[in-house]
């Protein structure tokens, strides 16, 4: 008789596959929404959900690295705004979409490096360091734009946010490729494994000869680049660089990571869970809109769903023990 066994020798069953569990939860949610509105279960709506999930998903990818290392990135939303406006301004100044997009990614990466330096070298707690960056990045975005959105983007710059390839939104494709890349990095490269190590036991990691400070800079730089990418996606979809955009996005990103089953204490988790988490959040919002739920009740519903998802995951963990 074949019984698939876990590493601990316990039987592998449905409940122990975290990703599968969250996926089924998502399907369950879709079925409920579908029951309330026939318009929910259409391909167009599903693609709309993936578009709406893109920015948060990109942020969740970077946030996964950070949370795996037992850190937290509160500056994500502000970096989205900063990268969006800088990218828009560079595009306007140089007339080149490529340079604009590059500027956005570099902006994100730089904020990440600063975070990594403050956390790794100066030793500040991630909460404090990224809280500071959250304010600074937002402030810079407002200063350089004078508070006014940068509109009139170059033709063709909307490809990331609005374009389609073979009918599939470009942003959806980019998100999928991003997660493929990040999953590869986390599971197959040295630096990826070190990320888990730092979150799991920073002391032991240091003692085994790994340069923890450098690793932290690398982790937050990656989170910064994904935030930069998210900023490009946001700008590209909205059609302008809004310095006030992205407020609260970091909370959605963190919620996506947590919903994906990744522990806030670090060291364990599968990044595909974060993608599912982002999908759940976007589906939730979309579904509640499509079935015309009152705006106030939406807030309540979202809170309940988040708690229910994480609770059922906790129960699942206990069954698995």
């Amino acid at each position, binding site marked *: 008789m074949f019984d698939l066994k876990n590493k601990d020798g316990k039987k592998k069953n449905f409940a122990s596959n975290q990703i599968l569990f969250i996926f089924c939860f998502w399907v369950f949610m879709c079925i409920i929404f579908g029951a309330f509105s026939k318009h929910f279960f259409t391909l167009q709506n599903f693609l709309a959900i993936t578009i709406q999930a893109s920015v948060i998903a990109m942020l969740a990818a970077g946030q996964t690295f950070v949370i795996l290392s037992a850190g937290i990135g509160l500056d994500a939303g502000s970096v989205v705004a900063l990268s969006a406006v800088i990218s828009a301004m560079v595009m306007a100044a140089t007339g080149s979409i490529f340079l604009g997009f590059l500027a956005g990614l570099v902006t994100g990466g730089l904020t990440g490096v600063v975070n990594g330096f403050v956390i790794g070298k100066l030793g500040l707690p991630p909460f404090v360091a990224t809280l500071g960056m959250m304010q600074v990045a937002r402030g810079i975005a407002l200063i350089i734009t004078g508070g006014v959105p940068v509109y*009139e983007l170059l033709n063709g710059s909307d490809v990331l946010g609005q374009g389609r390839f073979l009918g599939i939104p470009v942003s959806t494709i980019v998100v999928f490729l991003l997660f493929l890349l990040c999953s590869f990095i986390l599971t197959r490269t040295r630096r990826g494994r070190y990320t888990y190590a730092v979150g799991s036991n920073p002391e032991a990691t240091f003692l085994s000869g790994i340069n923890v400070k450098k690793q932290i800079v690398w982790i937050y730089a990656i989170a910064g680049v994904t935030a930069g990418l998210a900023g490009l996606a946001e700008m590209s979809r909205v059609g302008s660089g809004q*310095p006030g955009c992205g407020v609260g996005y970091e909370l959605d990103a963190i919620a996506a990571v947590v919903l994906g089953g990744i522990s806030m204490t670090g060291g364990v988790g599968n990044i595909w869970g974060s993608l599912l988490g982002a999908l759940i959040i976007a589906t939730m919002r979309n579904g509640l809109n499509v079935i015309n739920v009152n705006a106030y009740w939406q807030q309540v519903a979202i809170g309940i769903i988040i708690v229910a998802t994480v609770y059922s995951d906790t129960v699942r963990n206990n069954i698995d023990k």
Partner: protein
Amino acid sequence: MKKTLTVFLLALMVVTAVFANGSQEASGTEARTLVFIPKTTSSQFWVNIYNGTEAAAEELGYNKVKFQGPSSGADVTGQINIFNDVVTSRPDGILIAVTDMKSLKKPIEAAIAAGVPVVTVNSGIESDLVLAHVATDNYSAGAMAADALAEMIGETGTVIDIGVDPASETGRQRENGFRDRMTASYPKIKVLPVQYACGEVSKAMNITSDLLTGNPEVVGIYSAQDAGGTGAAQVLKQRNLKDSVKIVSFDSSPDEFALFLEGNLDAMVVQDPFNQGYKGVMAMDKVLNGEISASEFIETPVKIITKDNVGEKSNYDLLASDANIKKMIEDAGIVIE
């Protein structure tokens, strides 16, 4: 121990000197200094009000008006904190567009009692202590918007309602004005439950996209704020629906205006932010000179601007107070008559 004490005392002296110097500078000047606190610094609309305050301040010989506000239009606590901090700096007067009328009532009345006059602009509180309130009559503006949208959709069909945010008094008045008029005069129009964009274009896009999916028979969209209109128009543009769905939106920001010129947005309810700021400062001047004794409401009227009347001089003046929009009108070759 001695060394630490010396360093500490030196530091204390330096800090005291800096603070003392700071407060001396503030009281030394003759010209008056006002501070304008908008709902948010992140939108062109409030910058336009600020430009109006600047123009009036220059005319009156005041110092440059200061501009301080939260980065999010729904951040009530942020605005309260900024307000209190500004009061501490004892300016000659504060102009404020309140984010939430109930939460700002106590701080504003306390400030007035403490000797810092406050004039409300665009969004106010219900108080007899505030001697001047310069604003649009948002309720009747909402009703005007309802008439405009109803005419465009032939007085029948389903309409999306994008609100500002639940705490915004201005937003609520525009909502109520719109919905009451629809209920009273256009029984064949069905208005969907309101969804709030909270001043974010991407949120408005999601709302519009989802509501269109759930209600494909929608023929019109009403937005109580420019971000909502911009977001809705973006979605119509992306879905190629500009001919089948009409949008009436409040305010005119450059990104919204660009979509208007393309035909993705059909009418804008344009306030007069420049004059709100201008008249606000003029009213403050009267308050400071003791010329106003009882609370006054100074109205700045709205105009509904469509492709048909955008060339009229009075409409052009309203729009052109925003330099970006002025340039767009010139580039589009619209004739002003």
